[in-house]
């Protein structure tokens, strides 16, 4: 397909434009994404369809190549930034049209742990995928997580730890949620360099997320199950 012609987005048909937007997300082109979103809306697309078919699908491809070591953090952040540009246009429209929410997440590094790059990446990727994320920062005691979860309607709790000395604190948070009878109201995802599946299972989390791309995929599949339950 490579030719030397400049691409005029408005001259592409819906299918080609959608594919072009996937490419533009991949390349982190924010203005082109904003333009594409506006063109699709102008053609009468539902905001929710623009979100899922053009943006979320494009970010899914970015996530796959990040997972496979083809894209790295800088490219992913640029893609997430372009995605956010599109989201800013869609967000008020999504609220108006009562489209299904992508989901809301509380995230933070656990008490005793001051590392935040991994958590920040997850935040950016989750926002890039259309989730609303409340980032509590580092060194969070159990109250921070629980008070925030109860302050608004959240779906997901994400906890991060880089230290083997701090990862057991995740269990403290989950145990407290169980005590308060609120564990089943949320999906709990955990991540961080020293963690693994086995640890996540042992402390009663719903999922271990190896990297930011996996976190997004996991969150999406949990939200899909939740929507299905609600409509069933």
């Amino acid at each position, binding site marked *: 397909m490579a030719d030397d012609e400049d691409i005029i987005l408005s001259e592409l048909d819906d299918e080609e434009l959608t594919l072009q937007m996937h490419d533009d997300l991949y390349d982190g082109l924010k203005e082109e994404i904003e333009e594409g979103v506006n063109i699709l809306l102008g053609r009468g697309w539902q905001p929710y369809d623009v979100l899922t078919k053009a943006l979320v699908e494009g970010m899914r491809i970015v996530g796959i190549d990040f997972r496979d070591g083809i894209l790295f*953090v800088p490219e992913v952040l640029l893609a997430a930034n372009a995605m956010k540009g599109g989201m800013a246009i869609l967000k008020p429209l999504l609220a108006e049209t009562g489209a299904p929410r992508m989901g809301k997440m509380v995230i933070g590094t656990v008490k005793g742990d001051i590392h935040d790059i991994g958590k920040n990446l997850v935040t950016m990727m989750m926002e890039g995928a259309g989730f609303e994320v409340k980032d509590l920062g580092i060194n969070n005691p159990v109250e921070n997580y629980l008070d925030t979860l109860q302050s608004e309607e959240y779906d997901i709790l994400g906890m991060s730890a880089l230290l083997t000395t701090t990862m057991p604190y995740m269990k403290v948070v989950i145990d407290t949620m169980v005590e308060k009878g609120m564990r089943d109201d949320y999906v709990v995802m955990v991540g961080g360099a020293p963690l693994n599946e086995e640890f996540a299972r042992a402390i009663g989390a719903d999922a271990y997320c190896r990297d930011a791309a996996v976190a997004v995929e996991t969150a999406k599949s949990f939200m899909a199950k939740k929507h299905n339950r609600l409509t069933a």
Partner: protein
Amino acid sequence: MAHKLQEMLARQGWLLADGATGTNLFNMGLEAGEAPEIWNETQPKSITTLYQGAVDAGSDLFLTNSFGGNYSRLKLHNAQGRVRQINRIAAEIAREVADRADRPLVVAGSMGPTGEIMQPVGSLSHQNAVEMFHEQAEGLKEGGADLLWIETLSAREEFAAAAEGISLAGMAWAGTMSFDTAGRTMMGLTASDMVKMVAGLKHQPLAFGANCGVGASDLLRTLIGFAAAGPKLPIIAKGNAGIPKFVDGHIHYDGTPELMAEYAVMARDIGAGIIGGCCGTMAPHLIAMRRALEERPAGDAPDLETIEARIGPFSSASDGSGGDGPVRRERRGRRR
């Protein structure tokens, strides 16, 4: 005039650097969540013990307890106003330990990443990053560090900012990056990318290399990548003592002193001049490394199969250099 580090390297052929800082401090009672750098002020005796441990185990060079001693990291502990002081004390204690020893020792002022992502993808500007590194460099210089030692970086922009900050303090330096993501740094740099990047810096370091990352095997593979790119500067190897394992509720690095001794000899044979450890590397590891470097004759550089057979497998199929790795998707069309 040659720097002390260069003189010692020329005389001995290789230098043994130190091992872990964090792992050792946790063993001395550092609580998770505490900033190790604050201990320079509150527990100077423990910091003396930390340095003395590396010296007694045979290190020729050791790093100061100042890894997270920049404005951005100390801000997390509300200590951003004491950057200069905390770094000065870290270097002063090290200077004392070094000057008391009966052999020449190099005090390297450790400087880790800011933890922020730089523009254009992140929010930290080049100017602010330079300022942060400069501030820390001045403190370490004041305390008497022989040179400054950038470590565990992943972004080329930040590495360049650190070099610039250090040049403002007029200090000699060395710098290492952490190759922990399928053989590349988190930001996607390969070993050969780093060699090229370092060659282009205005304020040239005395040495460059790799630290931390994923285990000792991966680190040696990165060294092979450096050597293949034909670097002009001495190479630094500071690998972790194996990989962290979660055993009975506590963490344990699975690399034995024997494994680290093998790693040290192979690092030298690949061409590293400054060899040490990182996370999990304790005094017994350093002692075994020194003995192996002294007793075992130099050999041919090991290939990847030999490394795998002697100290274990790699974490990924390739290190991302050369054309054999995964490639980016083809674009549908051309833009502008």
